[in-house]
């Protein structure tokens, strides 16, 4: 039986991933901002067969509680094997351009709060000598694009941080997984028109579950984004700057 902590447990991808663990009878510690939504997710996971589900209401901006969330999870589940960091927001790029305050908020939520969790999680798992830290970043991390570079930058910072963390924790037998979804149809992307490249939270969740099981390092979901982003990354800057991507 596996013990999993999920930060941002009411997000669509996190909920879909949690369901996969629940059907295996695993134990889950769910953290999110809204109590009623947490309860709805918890009820669902219990009905699907989760061994145990506990909840804690937290706004990720409460930095002084990050460490205790982890110790609470460990205490209440009786152990901790996997931490999935899945919280985040998708800002409107033009608003971030108009106001640095808006951009700064995005960095707080998508980057700094994540780095704070990672700091505590890394120390925790390193001391334990085993475990998995899985974090959802994005294909947007691979290159800053005109249409969403604030978001991309927050995710790029986390991705680089994870890369270093992976090396540090490798000798402690702790697995660090960077999850890079492409376009996913969730409430976060409800304003977008959906086309051929779009996928569902369920498919992303299967990919995450597999990535954790196989101890992958960096996964692109669906797989074809690895190749799309490779091409995107290879375009020389003097060409890229002219593209309206």
């Amino acid at each position: 039986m596996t013990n999993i902590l999920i930060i941002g447990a009411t997000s669509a991808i996190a909920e879909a991933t949690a369901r996969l663990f629940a059907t295996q009878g695993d134990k889950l510690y769910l953290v999110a901002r809204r109590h009623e939504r947490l309860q709805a997710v918890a009820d669902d996971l219990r009905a699907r067969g989760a061994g145990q589900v506990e909840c804690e209401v937290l706004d990720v901006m409460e930095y002084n509680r990050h460490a205790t969330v982890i110790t609470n999870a460990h205490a209440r589940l009786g152990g901790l094997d996997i931490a999935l960091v899945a919280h985040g927001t998708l800002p409107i790029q033009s608003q971030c351009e108009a106001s640095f305050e808006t951009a700064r908020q995005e960095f707080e939520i998508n980057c700094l709060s994540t780095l704070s969790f990672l700091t505590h999680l890394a120390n925790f798992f390193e001391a334990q000598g085993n475990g998995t830290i899985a974090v959802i970043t994005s294909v947007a991390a691979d290159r800053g694009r005109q249409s969403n570079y604030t978001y991309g930058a927050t995710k790029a910072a986390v991705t680089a941080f994870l890369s270093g963390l992976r090396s540090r924790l490798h000798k402690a037998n702790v697995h660090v997984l960077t999850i890079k979804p492409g376009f996913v149809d969730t409430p976060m992307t409800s304003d977008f028109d959906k086309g051929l490249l779009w996928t569902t939270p369920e498919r992303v969740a299967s990919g995450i579950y597999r990535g954790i099981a196989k101890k992958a390092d960096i996964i692109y979901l669906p797989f074809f984004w690895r190749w799309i982003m490779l091409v995107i990354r290879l375009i020389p800057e003097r060409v890229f700057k002219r593209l309206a991507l």
Partner: protein
Amino acid sequence: MPKRYQSWGRYPRTKQDIVKLHWRSDPLPLPKSPNKTILPYGNGRSYGDSCLNDGGVLLDTRGLDRLLAFDRENGILRCEAGVLLSEILALVVPHGWFVAATPGTQLVTVGGAIANDVHGKGHHRDGTFGQHVRCFELLRSDGTHRVCSPTENSEWFAATIGGLGLTGLIVWAEIALKPIANPYIEAATTRFDQLDSYFTITRDADSHDEYTVAWIDCLAQGNKIGRGIFTRGNHASQLPTKPKQSQPGGFPFPVEPPLSLINSVTLRAFNMLYYHSSQRRSKKSLLHYRPFFYPLDAIDHWNRIYGPKGFMQYQCVVPFTDGQASVRELLERIARSRQGSFLAVLKTFGDQASPGLMSFPRPGVTLALDFPNRGDVTLQLLSSLDEVVRQAGGAVYPAKDARMSGASFRAFFPQWESFANYIDANFSSSFWRRVTGDRQ
């Protein structure tokens, strides 16, 4: 691919704004413009326009897909209304439970199953879906939440079952499951060569078997009218030695052909081959519940086979009194028209009483079939069938209807006016406006 909000018959084509629901704790989203009405939309397996709201808003309920509680001991499941019956079955069958009163597809939401008070091959034993609903929560546009059951808010309970989504949003529901020993069905098929034999066979089968239904050759004429293949089934008591694996996924019907693949030539050929493929003697088999209950679910988007104009389903019920004569008359009119489909089905309804005020099943014989949409010619045939049904004192099923007249609807459902008292002022559907609009 962008999701299209259509009904299963892909007729009529309508245009709606879409609002997706995600959390049962959220308030009901109301449209920004005051004269736009809303309608909950499940998985779009209604055939006609009862799940459509042209010019209005559809509430996509598939985000309400969570379970609330599953009592494995007693077979009671509480879940949000956007959960599909297929998801319920995947969860409960391994624990020895089955969905009572399942319709012919498992790809319907719990909300849709309640709103249409669906029924299936087991109606003569199990009644309708609504008879297995213990309670549900109804959310109205004024923000009121009502938990409805036979003993609490019972009028709302009755109005919402078969209420076509018009009384408000069903947020979650609690259903009673039926116990099974394993996922298999012991089935037997028998060929019969004319309508009278159907009635003889079904009288016997209904008293012995849990599930009964007949496929009918709708092109047969003269003394061959009503010939077909009768299927009966029961949940198996013993596991077979080599269980057949049934894959849940389907083969997609990938493209829409430019015209209907069902025409008089293909239909005649299919019906002849299919009828003769079965035997007069009963042929027994043991099969997984999926191919027994949901054979068409194996082909994703089978509705595309009818081409861009789509198709119309027609399902009616006629009372037992003069039932044989009425069914014969219906089949004669259909055979003469040379229209019709290979999916023609005949079944008897039992005298199970649904709690639903606007419930369709009533004691009698029900006939269901598809017609490729050939425009006026199809509409005229169906109106002519309506006449037979009206004379017999029967009814046509709203969940499948895209064209019945207001006068016919009000004859089939005389209780429509008392039902109308329970309709939420901000809810409406293309169906409701069509069948009551000429009276307003």
